[in-house]
Structure formats: structure tokens, C-alpha cells
């Protein structure tokens, strides 16, 4: 037997060992690194894989945590304010056998964090007529200690800081809808047309310059966009269109549009580029003009991507805080005049959260608004996922 034919040179040739029962002994002397089969090595690898698995699961865990912990702070609105009294009663600090001191005067020392029973305060003789004058006819009279019920939200006025707070969110809802609508109306055509240009009509080198510049807009912090709206754009709008209040839904909408344009542009551009060129060539071959091919064939073909882009832009505009805080005027007006100052959900949270008392009804309400925002973005994401999947599956199946 020749040496170079032996597959494992370190083994003695088979004949010298002879009997088959010795074979396994020799196989175990094969040149596999012994450390590889060590149990501790395998266990170590398993532990690392487990660790990676656990850390990867963190994203999922955190989604649940976000929902749970924001909902927890808002839960008393739904489930009643059952928090136990934080106040330590006076007799907690009295020696057994000693007379209890006179009640009311000293109780202020232990200010309850929140939620002393409503009966107590309402018995304190609120001047009903004066309160009615402030609150209006259809809203229950509340004080800062009254717990919040869900029904209190379905009204127009949001005045949580007044003596008789009102928690109606209609004005905020309308404000958010107005600014988002304006933002989408401005941003969508601009972005889609620009994407059309860079995807089809622009020469390649121009595309490589333009696309990064527009994507740079995505890198602008929203504070900066808000600042620009506050300073320059508001002035321009007022001098050109003569609005009564300088900061209004329209200016806010422009700012939001600036934030949303890069999102819609990038996704639309990618979708348009992803369509096979043969579709366009086929359209041209049957006699369509350039613009007909672009608008009536390619653009409809990219509809799932464009729809996703608009949805993502919608989600962004709905929840954007700083631009709304700085550029919308922050006054909760109702009505569909685009040039009224408005309040949005996110701006309300951002503006008022720093000043609420922990655990107060106002605090719970702000968390409720946060939960609403979270659910809204979650639903949008869900719709995008399933809609896109369905459309793409159908497309690849050829229907």
C-alpha cells in the first residue's frame, strides 16, 4: 500500500492493526480538534446561542412593555381610581393611648399625591353657579381631585389647568387631523413626482446627487424644522396669504410636510426602481408616450409601495411632536379653517407632561393620549404589513 493513498497519514496502515474491532479506536484518533467535541465547548455554544436568542427577543418584549406601562398609568381612567390613600392618617403618628389631635389643620402636611375621594371635595361647597359659568352647560363640574371618566373626553374643550378642568379631546383630534391632512396634501404629490423624476427621467449622475440631498432632509432634527417654520415660514405665509394668527395649522402642516417628504420620496423611488424595466418598454412598444408610460403604467404598478409610503408618512405626521409644538400655535380651536391655531395630540403631551403632578387625572389623561398614539401607529404598521404582503403575493401569482 502506497503512502500517498492513505487518507489519514497519521494513522498506522490498517493491515498492521488487523482486527476490525480496533477500527473505532483509530477513528477516534482522527485529526479533529478534540476541543470541538468537548462537552463544555458545546454547552458554551448553546449558552451563547441562548443569549443571542434572548437579546433578539428584546424588541418584542419592549413593544409589550411600552404598551403595558403606558397603559398602566392611564388605567385608572378605565378601571376606577382605586389607589389606596397615600396619606398617612394623623393617628398613624400618635402614641397609643394619647388623645388624637384636632383634625383638619395639620392634614395639609401630608399632601395626597392624588385621588382623595371625590365625595370629600365636592362636599367642600363648590360655588355651582360660578362653576357653571366657566364650564358651560353640558359638561360636568369637576375639580382637580375628581377622577377622570372616559366619558369626559368626548367634548370640545381641553382645559385641564383651569379651576374646573375640562378634558374634551375633540379640539385636539381635529387639530391633529387638520395638520396631518395639510402635510399629506403638500408632501404626497411633491414626493411622488420627485421620485418619478429621479427614478425615470433624470440622468444617472443627476440621480446620484439628488437622491442623497433629499434624503439629507430626513436627517434634519424636527426641532430645526419647527424652528424654521416658527421663524421664517410663518412670516412668509402671513405676508403672502394674510392669516390672522401667525402660527396656525397651515404653517404646522408645511413643517410636517418637510418632515414627511423624505419618507414618501425614498420609498416611492425604491418602489418605482423595483418595477422591471420591461414593463415600461412594453408600454412604449405598444405606442404610449413617455408620460403615458410613466403615469398610467409605471405609477399604478408601484401602488403597493406608494401606499405604504403614504401610510408611513401619515404615521410620522400624526405623532410628530416638536414641529407641532413650535409651529401650530398651540390653541385648541375647532373648525376646518386651515389658518386657525391648533393643538395636536403629541404637542399636548409634550407641552403639558412636564408640569403635571404624578398620578393626577391630568397625568393619567396624557398617558391615555400616548396610548392612543401608540395604538394608531401600531395599526398603521399592521395595515402596511398585511396590505403589502397581500398585494405582493397576488402580484407574484399573476392575478
Amino acid at each position, binding site marked *: 500500500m502506497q503512502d500517498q493513498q492513505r487518507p489519514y497519514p497519521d494513522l498506522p496502515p490498517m493491515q498492521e492493526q488487523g482486527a476490525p474491532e480496533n477500527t473505532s479506536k483509530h477513528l477516534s484518533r482522527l485529526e*479533529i480538534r478534540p476541543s*470541538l467535541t468537548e462537552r463544555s465547548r458545546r454547552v458554551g*455554544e448553546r449558552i451563547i*446561542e441562548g*443569549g*443571542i436568542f434572548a*437579546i*433578539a427577543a428584546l424588541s418584542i418584549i419592549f*413593544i409589550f*412593555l*411600552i404598551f403595558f406601562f403606558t397603559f398602566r*398609568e392611564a388605567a385608572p381612567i378605565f378601571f376606577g381610581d382605586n389607589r389606596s390613600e397615600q396619606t*398617612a392618617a*394623623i393617628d*398613624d*403618628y*400618635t*402614641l397609643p393611648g394619647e388623645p388624637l*389631635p384636632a383634625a383638619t389643620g*395639620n392634614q395639609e*402636611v*401630608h399632601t395626597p399625591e392624588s385621588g382623595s375621594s371625590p365625595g370629600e371635595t365636592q362636599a367642600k361647597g363648590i360655588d355651582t353657579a360660578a362653576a357653571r359659568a366657566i364650564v358651560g352647560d353640558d359638561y360636568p363640574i369637576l375639580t382637580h381631585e375628581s377622577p377622570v371618566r372616559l366619558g369626559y373626553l368626548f367634548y370640545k374643550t381641553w382645559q385641564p389647568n383651569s379651576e374646573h378642568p375640562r378634558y374634551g379631546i375633540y379640539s385636539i383630534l381635529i387639530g391633529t387631523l387638520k395638520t396631518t391632512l395639510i402635510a399629506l396634501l403638500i408632501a404626497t*404629490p411633491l*414626493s411622488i413626482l*420627485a421620485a*418619478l*423624476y429621479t427614478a425615470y*427621467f433624470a440622468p444617472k449622475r443627476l440621480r446620484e446627487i439628488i437622491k*442623497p*440631498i433629499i434624503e*439629507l*432632509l*430626513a*436627517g434634519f*432634527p*424636527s*426641532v*430645526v424644522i*419647527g*424652528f424654521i417654520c416658527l*421663524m421664517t415660514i410663518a412670516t412668509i405665509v402671513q405676508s403672502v396669504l394674510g392669516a390672522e394668527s401667525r402660527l396656525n395649522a397651515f404653517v404646522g402642516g408645511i413643517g410636517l410636510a*418637510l418632515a414627511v417628504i423624505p419618507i414618501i420620496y425614498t420609498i416611492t423611488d425604491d418602489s418605482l426602481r423595483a418595477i422591471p424595466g420591461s414593463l415600461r418598454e412594453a408600454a412604449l412598444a405598444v*405606442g404610449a408616450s413617455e*408620460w403615458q408610460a410613466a*403615469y398610467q403604467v409605471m405609477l399604478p404598478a408601484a401602488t403597493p409601495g406608494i401606499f405604504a409610503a403614504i401610510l408611513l408618512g401619515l404615521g410620522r405626521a400624526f*405623532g410628530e*411632536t*416638536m414641529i407641532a*409644538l*413650535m409651529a401650530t400655535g398651540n390653541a385648541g380651536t375647532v373648525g376646518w379653517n386651515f389658518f386657525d391655531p391648533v393643538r395636536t395630540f403629541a404637542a399636548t*403631551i*409634550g407641552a403639558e*407632561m*412636564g408640569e403635571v403632578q*404624578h398620578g393626577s387625572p391630568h397625568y393619567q389623561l396624557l398617558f391615555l393620549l*400616548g396610548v392612543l*398614539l401608540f395604538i394608531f*401607529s*401600531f395599526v398603521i*404598521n399592521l395595515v402596511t404589513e398585511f396590505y403589502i404582503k397581500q398585494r405582493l403575493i397576488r402580484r407574484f401569482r399573476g392575478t
Partner: protein
Amino acid sequence: MMKEHRKSLVGLLALRLPLLATAAILLTIFAIVGNFLVTGVPHLSWSFFTDPPTHANTEGGIYPAIVGTVALVLLMTLAAVPVGTITAIYLTEYARQNSWFARTIRFAVNTLAGVPSVVFGLFGLGFFIQTIGGQIDQVRWNQRMTQFEQTLQAGGSPVAHGRIATVAQVQEFLNAYQDDDWSEQATKFNAFPRGTVARINADIAKRYISNSVELVWGKPSLIWAALTLALLTLPVVIVSVEESLRTVPREIREASLALGATKWETIRKVVIPNSLTGILTGSILAIGRGAGEVAPILFTGVIYSSQEGPKALTDQFMHLGYHLYILATQSPDVDATRPLQYATTVVLLGLTLALNLTAILLRSYIRRKQAA
């Protein structure tokens, strides 16, 4: 022969519109950046970068804001990049095709990417600050209360062994104890409901002090704001790193496995070193995003004025973006602060744009290298 088209008006317009739209967007971008540069750059100076703000934010520099932003972003990166990288590693290397777990992770990441930034702030408040921070404080406080109890039972204490004394006597004892901490607790008795002449025992004294937990970790601070931002930028890191991990050719992985490396060894010694640039890109993008977000830190740790940067993890901090917001909306003297506002904007914008540009350049470098 192809049909000749009459050049219709609609057609002409339709072909021009995309170019017009692009031009409009580009012009707006240039106008904005130009406006900032022209108005803000003249006010930049060395002292602007190194001095703290003075005269109620109407003069001075932004040094503490720079330090605060840098500290915040550093901590955030330390938290986000490892977690994001490992998640990306799982998604590319370990997850089976279309396993429901991988799909759920991707869905969770997409959801995280879409959550409004202010909701992250609320989460930071409700989870990090109140739950985790509060728990840490509670545990430490319980330890101190045990010590307090022991102190109250020590020799010389007027309430030791069940004796009864007045609040004033207890205060006197605590002040004389030569422990600054107990002197601090002694002053809390000034607010005792029945006054300092009331008689108490050790039990009451301990219960009274126990109810006033001192908040060290359970309040808005640098660490919690950084973790909140880390959560917000996690999707950015994951997507970037995943993209770069996928550019490592399969053949390299297979060669490594064939030579006898385990899967983790392959990842650690072959895949990761080859995608370091991508990980770097992801980190830079995350930093760029995190440095500019103001909404999540509004109630998790930022303050509008301090003379120096944050010194401890539990300190509050100034922030460039927040500083701009305050200057723009709550300034007592608008004319005096206008140059400050623009200068701050230039710094903030310059920072984020520089970071984004670096990331874009890195990314195209990776893509060109891969195509070669």
C-alpha cells in the same frame, strides 16, 4: 411604423411636473440650510462653544448643552449598538427562513420604528424612571431605614428600648450623631404633623421617615433618557447591521465552517470583522437620529439651564435640541436671542448632517467594495 404623437399640452406638463417638484424640494432644502448658515455662522465663536449660557439664556455659549448631548448620545450608543447588533446577528445567522419568531421580531422592529417619539418619552417615564428607578430607590431606602432603626436603638438615643421622647429630643440626638445623613433626616421632622413637642417612640419615628423615600434614581436623569433614546434608535441599528451582515458572502461563512469553526466562532471571527464598517454605519446613523430627537427627553431628564455638564448618571442635563426649542419659544428677549438661536441651529444641524453624510459615504463605500 410607430405612431407619431402630437405633443399634447397635458403631455408637456406631465413631463415637466416631476422636474418642477424635484426642483421645488431641492430649492427649499438649499434655502433652509443657506438661511441658517448666513444668519448663524457669524455668531459662532470659540467662546460660544466653551461658555455656559448666561443672563437667563440670552447670552453666552452652549457648552453645557454640547457636553449634555455628547454624554447622552454616548450612553445611548453603548446601550443600542450591542443589542441591535446581536438582534441583527440572530436575524441573519440563526433564524430559520420564515420562522414565526423571526417574523415577529421584524414586525416588532418595524413597529418600534413607527412609534411616535413622545410615546417613548412616556414609556421612559412610566417604566425606567418610576418602575425601575423607583425600585432601586426603594431598595436602597429600605437598607437605610434598617440602619436608621439601628441608630434609633443605639446607646444615647432618647427612644431606645421603647422609651418615649419628644420630636425635638430625637432631632437633637440625630444631629449630634456625627452622620450628615441622619442630620438630614432630622430636618424632616420639622414638618411633623403634631409639631416638634409631640411625643413619639422609635416605631413612629421610623415610620415617619420611611414614608419620604429620597428619589435618586427614580427621577428624570441622564441614564434613563439615554436608555429611552436607545430604544428609539434600536431599529436604525438593527436594519443597518442586518444589511451589512448580508453583504458578507456565503462562501466565506461556509469556508469557515468547513475548516472546523463552530457557528459562533464563525460569526465572531469571520462575519463580524467583515461587517464592522456596516456596524459603524448603523451606529453613526443612530447617533445622528438620537442627537436630534427632543421629544423623548422632554420629561426624562433634560433641563433648560445649568452651568456645567452632567457629572453623574443621575444628573439632569442640557441638550442642544432642547436648548434651541427653549430659546425659540420661551425666550424673554427675542431680539437678543435670535443670533443664539441660529448659531445653536447651525451647530445642531451641522452635527446631524455631518453624521448622516458620514454614514451615507460609508454605506456607498461598502456597496462599491461589495460590487467589486
